[in-house]
């Protein structure tokens, strides 16, 4: 039985699940993926602009760290993205695919704007801001509650339901703008720009500092909630195995609804921060795609709020940098989306090398 007479060729390699991998190896792989993605991104920009790659990197860096103003703008972007990422995380941990963060933020923001626009000059500012905060949170909850209740009741597909809710929110905002802006223009200017009613105050002369502090606190609270609270534990159990959850007497439907209320409330809060703290106006692009980006941020960070600071920084840094490149080299700002897409492809792709190993068939025969 000579070996040369094999009828078919052996496969060169096959896959096996890794039993475990040291954490530093895993982060090495992720780091390598991020660096390779940055190289690919730069290559693309170099091809498009025919600029020196170093200049491209310098511009990328300047987008976030070029001036103090840019730095704060990046932090503000990071804070909002992080806030929405924190919002979607408990639901995702439960394997509830909430693709509706965009709509929840938007509707939450709309609720704030209604108060700001309609009664902005009628009640004291502090009261107004508190009322806006509550309205936004309730709005976000409402938008998350419909799909959550139906998921709990009939198992209605939540990802498509929440997705559709986004567009309903968009249409509502368009409607409101049509009503508020009499000229028929679909753009709404700054609201209460003279009285600044409903505007969050600047702290230490920094307009965005309050937003950033709120989100920083939220990050720590969410980390503790998920890891050390009983509710957080229930979320993990339901996410891992619904049968086990039922077996130990967890009311799965209750947990789904409760967690989505939390998720919606935080999205509403993000809407409030955007309207009251950042934009002081509303448009249907209020969340600007962050509702979807947040899903990726949360996923890349494996649902860990602390790691999410890093992943959302990465995205915010990249988007600001891409914006800078776009202005410097006279390109369209959508380059940011292209770069974001590429970097996410690389990171989700690299997880494979953490979870699986490629075994060479030859190697083993040699043993």
């Amino acid at each position, binding site marked *: 039985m000579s070996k040369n007479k094999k009828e078919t060729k052996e496969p060169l390699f096959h896959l096996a699940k890794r039993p475990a991998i040291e954490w530093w190896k895993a982060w090495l792989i992720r780091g390598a993926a991020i660096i390779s993605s940055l190289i690919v991104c730069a290559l693309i920009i170099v091809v498009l602009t025919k600029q020196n790659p170093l200049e491209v990197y310098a511009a990328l860096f300047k987008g976030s760290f070029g001036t103090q103003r840019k730095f704060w703008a990046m932090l503000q972007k990071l804070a909002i993205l992080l806030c929405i990422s924190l919002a979607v995380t408990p639901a995702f941990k439960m394997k509830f695919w909430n693709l509706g963060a965009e709509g929840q933020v938007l509707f939450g923001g709309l609720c704030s704007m209604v108060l700001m626009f309609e009664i902005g000059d009628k009640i004291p500012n502090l009261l107004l801001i508190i009322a806006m905060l509550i309205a936004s949170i309730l709005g976000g909850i409402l938008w998350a509650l419909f799909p959550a209740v139906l998921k709990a009741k009939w198992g209605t597909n939540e990802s498509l339901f929440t997705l559709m809710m986004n567009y309903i929110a968009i249409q509502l905002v368009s409607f409101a703008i049509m009503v508020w802006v009499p000229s028929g223009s679909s753009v709404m200017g700054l609201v209460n720009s003279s009285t600044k009613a409903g505007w969050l105050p600047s702290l230490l002369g920094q307009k965005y500092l309050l937003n950033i502090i709120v989100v920083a606190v939220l990050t720590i609270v969410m980390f503790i909630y998920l890891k050390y609270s009983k509710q957080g534990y229930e979320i993990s159990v339901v996410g891992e195995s619904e049968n*086990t959850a039922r077996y130990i007497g967890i009311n799965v439907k209750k947990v789904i609804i409760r967690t989505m209320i939390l998720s919606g409330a935080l999205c509403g809060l993000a809407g409030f921060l955007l309207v009251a703290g950042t934009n002081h106006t509303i448009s249907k692009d209020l969340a600007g795609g962050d509702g979807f980006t947040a899903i990726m941020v949360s996923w890349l960070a494996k649902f860990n709020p602390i790691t999410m600071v890093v992943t959302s920084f990465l995205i915010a840094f990249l988007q600001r940098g891409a914006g800078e490149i776009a202005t410097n080299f006279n390109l369209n700002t959508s380059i940011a989306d292209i770069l974001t897409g590429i970097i996410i492809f690389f990171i989700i792709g690299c997880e494979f090398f953490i979870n699986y190993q490629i075994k060479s068939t030859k190697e083993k025969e040699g043993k």
Partner: protein
Amino acid sequence: MSTPAIELKNISKTFGSIAANKGVNLTVYNGEILSLLGENGSGKTTLMNMISGIYFPDAGHIYIDGKEVVIRSPKDAFDHRIGMIHQHFKLVDIFTAAENIVLGLEEGGRFNIKEAENKVREISTRYGFDIDPTKKIYEMSVSEKQTVEIIKVLYRGANILILDEPTAVLTPQETKKLFAVLRKMKEDGKAIVIITHKLHEVLEISDRVSVLRKGEYIGTLETANTDESELTEMMVGKKISLNIDRSEPKDSVDRLEINNLDCITRDGVKILDNISFTVKSGEILGIAGIAGSGQKELLESIAGLQKVRNGEIIYHNPKTGSTDSLRDKTPMQIKELGVRLSFVPEDRLGMGLVGNMDIIDNMMLRSYRKGKSVFLNRKKPRSLADKIITDLEVVTPSANTPIRRLSGGNVQKVLVGREISAAPTVLMVAYPVRGLDINSSYLIYNLLNEQKEKGVAVIFVGEDLDVLIELCDRILVLSSGRVSGIVDGRTTDKSEIGLLMTKGEEGGEGNVEE
């Protein structure tokens, strides 16, 4: 002898750190039936999966008709005319029998399902199967599904047939029919491998027996020249009669009373039919029956996980002396009643434990609600985890290791350990030794006996009749969702239970044939 139809040399396969097969050799000739014998978890199925292309061996050689081959996919296996009938049927639920049978075939010409249906009918008549090719799989009984699997292999003209525990889901009558079919195939000159751990079947159907133990090849014998005790010795390593200790129940009082319980599955099938029995404190009540006779639903009804249509579940509380109805209560409500019910379900990682959590977090599953704090207290679960790891000799790198990285036996120890630690008054265990080695199995038996001596009412659902007879005080036999008898473990024997297991089967006119 002639060239073997299939020959394996030095086959090895590891999963992660677990060696499923170590240097296994095996030979099968045309026109013979070979039994592949071994305990649960001895690597039989893994070995056969490497012949049928599901797994790829880490090392070793496979020869078909004397020529070395490489099988890297099920398609390669078909090309070598190898067909395997898996224990878990590989059928598409919403397809018809005929659609499933022709699935993946690459015949020339236009695809014509009618032609395929006719060919299926042809094969059915030739071997005496009874099947409607246009019936959808989700409307079929288990034995019908198995028939579809076998026809699928025959349709492809397989020369080597591998059957993975084909009788586990069949009634004795159906088994008899299956064996008749296998003998016909043998006369046709086909090479047949039947995986089993039932000794009487080995002796009845096979020409030769190959034995595996813990992934290693032990040897091959001519069936005519061997007997049950020799095979058992090869299978388990040393000759053992079970010798499980059994004490007399003390101060037995009624603990749990089930009256006229009816239960219907989601598809409308009556899975429990008028079940009545009583479990006493300080005894082990065994539950025997063919797989799928309603064992799972019975336990889940008691645990509050399965909707009940009719009947009563009554608990006699030893502390308060009161009697409570558990029917239509959620697990939470049952707990709030002060009922200390522990339950080791059949599917450990699907229900009972969370695979991605570590041992400590799994310990908390039952107890995390304790106290008013909104935060978790991991101190007690940690010490419980450490205690279980030492007491039950759980092999694990640490208490922080995710459960899914442990072997089946260690997972089971963690689960049983946790359930017992709750000091239950009723303990229900389903197939607790499935996939465990002999030592771990005895450890589990001892734990159950300890609980019994503490006055716990133990319900033990098992599949090995020898164990049931030696361990349990009384044995309740389920057959098609009905109680076909309750026998005394000290006086009964296997044939009595075996008979009860098939009593009341639909179409089970066994007495006509006898």
